[in-house]
């Protein structure tokens, strides 16, 4: 099986099959990632389309020193940032575009179970870039250095932000555990 970089090299030589293989590898992962960044399902669809088109157009400018995953996530983040975040009302107040969709497209895609999805909590309590840093590191298994590159932030910023995010989510996780233990205890003793 060829690596991403080998496929990029082949695509740069003009192989359309190689680029199609890259699209196939990253399509689902990128779409799920973009759902966490965009304000609606339609925006995420537009963003993923633009991401692949931009990647194809600027494939010649790809620097082999980067990982392909870092590069394409960087493009995806840029495209997600271009999507409208909300609607500016006449009185100047700002209303989220997905106000009628609950917590946005992410909320709609989550399989419901008895506990709260931690990513939904993260979406509410963390800043967008902090959320993305956590996602890229813990879900896409991207090293911290690559995360900082994808976000176009300094390495120290990324480390500090991830540490804070981790602390914050650990607190929520512990609170949830304590709460469920209390509930279980109350049930057993109730």
């Amino acid at each position, binding site marked *: 099986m060829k690596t991403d970089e080998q496929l990029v090299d082949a695509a740069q030589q003009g192989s359309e099959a190689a680029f199609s293989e890259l699209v196939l590898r990253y399509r689902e992962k990128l779409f799920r990632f973009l759902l966490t960044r965009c304000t609606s399902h339609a925006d995420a669809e537009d963003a*993923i*389309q633009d991401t692949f088109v931009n990647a*194809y*157009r600027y494939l010649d400018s790809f620097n082999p020193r980067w990982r392909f995953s870092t590069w394409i996530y960087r493009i995806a983040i840029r495209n997600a940032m271009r999507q409208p975040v909300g609607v500016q009302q006449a009185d100047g107040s700002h209303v989220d575009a997905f106000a009628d969709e609950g917590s946005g497209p992410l909320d709609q895609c989550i399989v419901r179970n008895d506990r709260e*999805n*931690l990513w939904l909590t993260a979406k509410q309590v963390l800043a967008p870039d902090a959320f993305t840093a956590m996602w890229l590191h813990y879900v896409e298994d991207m090293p911290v250095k690559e995360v900082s590159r994808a976000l176009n932030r300094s390495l120290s910023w990324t480390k500090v932000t991830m540490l804070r995010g981790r602390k914050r989510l*650990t607190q929520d*996780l512990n609170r949830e555990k304590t709460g469920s233990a209390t509930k279980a205890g109350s049930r057993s003793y109730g």
Partner: protein
Amino acid sequence: MDDLKTRLKQDADEIQASTSPELRARIDASLHAARGSKAVTNTPATRPVSLWWVSSVTGLTAAVLVISLMNWKSPVENETQDLSASVPAPTNEVSLPEEWIPGDKFLLNVEQADLTRSLEEELLNLQSDLEKAKENVERDVKFAF
């Protein structure tokens, strides 16, 4: 692997997001369009080389053509000789149009213009100066020896 990491992985797996067939078709179509536009934008990159060759060949051909035409038209000297031959030799006689000649009432005295008189006088002056200088030199030579 710590609890948080495990939990984040699990919760991410619970996010069921897959691209619809329509979205895949959209992506494929936009990539197809991008391939077309990229091919079109790549075409001019080869154009300057071919244009360079064409312009060079055209320039050379034009230069050769101009040079050959110049050489073909070169008997200019012969033409100038012919022209000089066709020009009549100057004559001393002056012919006036008939309407200028009033007939019996008025006689027009026409004199030949003497354009060389001043030069001839100058020549005579120079010759006399030369003779005087010669006499002076001879006299000085006689005194010396």
